[in-house]
């Protein structure tokens, strides 16, 4: 059987793989035992849960999604979350809501996040309307690197107006149409915590934008940085 890749390409592919492996090893080594010493802003950020008074903020860049998020712990299991997501700066999704910690142990957290906001999309397919989000977050922090998974759903209500000017009639006929858009997504990533007050993450994003309207969805990737104050050391909850 013939090799699919020419020899030179295979060498390049191997070199690329080794390079990524070296980066991953460096990232793991750089994180040290930080996660074992107590809560970190990165785990707080990934799980949308902070202790009362603790806060974290993060910025992420990637393709096609980038964004900002800030959160503040309100109560033992309730966190205020505000964020702005954007897809290639054509679609903006500002929202605010609450993160509710369902399970909190030193090594894992499960939380639900509820948000209200809007979708504002420009370009050739403009749309704008209020939206609501629901996310389930699972974060594990068994060591210096913690994997996380986010499953979310966003529902957007669009209200479109059409004004029809008939010949010989001065006032237009006005009709209003309501429509619904559903945009679920899945995120799988790794959270790194070099210190308790600083961390970063890499993740793969699957945003299925406007299911049934947009036929094609491409996976994306992002890199994020988080800073903040996770509160005192000790048990997470």
């Amino acid at each position, binding site marked *: 059987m013939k090799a699919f890749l020419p020899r030179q390409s295979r060498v390049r592919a191997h070199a690329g793989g080794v390079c990524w492996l070296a980066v991953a090893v460096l990232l793991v080594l750089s994180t040290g035992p930080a996660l074992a010493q107590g809560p970190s802003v990165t785990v707080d950020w990934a799980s949308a849960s902070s202790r009362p008074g603790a806060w974290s903020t993060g910025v992420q860049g990637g393709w096609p999604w980038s964004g900002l998020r800030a959160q503040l712990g309100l109560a033992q299991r309730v966190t205020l979350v505000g964020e702005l997501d954007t897809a290639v700066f054509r679609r903006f999704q500002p929202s605010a809501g609450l993160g509710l910690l369902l399970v909190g142990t030193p090594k894992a957290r499960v939380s639900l996040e509820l948000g209200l906001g809007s979708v504002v999309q420009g370009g050739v397919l403009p749309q*704008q309307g209020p939206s609501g989000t629901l996310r389930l977050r699972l974060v594990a922090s068994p060591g210096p690197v913690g994997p996380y998974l986010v499953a979310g759903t966003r529902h957007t209500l*669009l209200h479109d107006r*059409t*004004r*029809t000017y008939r*010949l010989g009639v001065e006032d*237009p006929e006005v009709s209003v149409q309501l429509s619904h858009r559903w945009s679920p997504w899945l995120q799988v990533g790794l959270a790194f915590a070099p210190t308790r007050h600083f961390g970063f993450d890499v993740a793969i994003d699957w945003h299925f934008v406007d299911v049934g309207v947009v036929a094609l969805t491409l996976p994306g990737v992002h890199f994020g940085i988080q800073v903040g104050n996770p509160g005192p050391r000790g048990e997470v909850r």
Partner: protein
Amino acid sequence: MELRVRRGVFLLALVVATGCWSSDEVLFEVALSGTIDEVGDEADVWVEAYYQSIGSGELATDIFLIDAFRVSGGGAFDYQLLYPVDRGRGLFVYAWADLDGDGALCAPGVTDEPVGGVGIDAPTEEPADELQIPLGALCTPPERLAWEMLR
């Protein structure tokens, strides 16, 4: 009545909450009338209204279908077109005779279906009532005919 009021309040709340409508389309009724070459009582002539151009930058394209209607046998026609003013520019009226009744312009093996068109640079509220559409070409698709006639 109460349901209407509730729906009205709900819609108002939505609009206030989000600042404006998701889309606000304006349609102008344009009166199209005139004559097309007659092709015989048994054949239909399809009349298709296109923008002359739509989009901008890399996504700009020459023609884009707005609406279509049928005129039996050709001859005189009269149609009220709802023209969305914000989406594209100009108007190109294209007509083709479906001589074999298959609903397709010049399907494989068919080379004799006549076509024609006329351009209106800026549709207005004034009726376009003297359109003359000779079917002087064979099987030329609308984008090609528009390119030949409008440039």
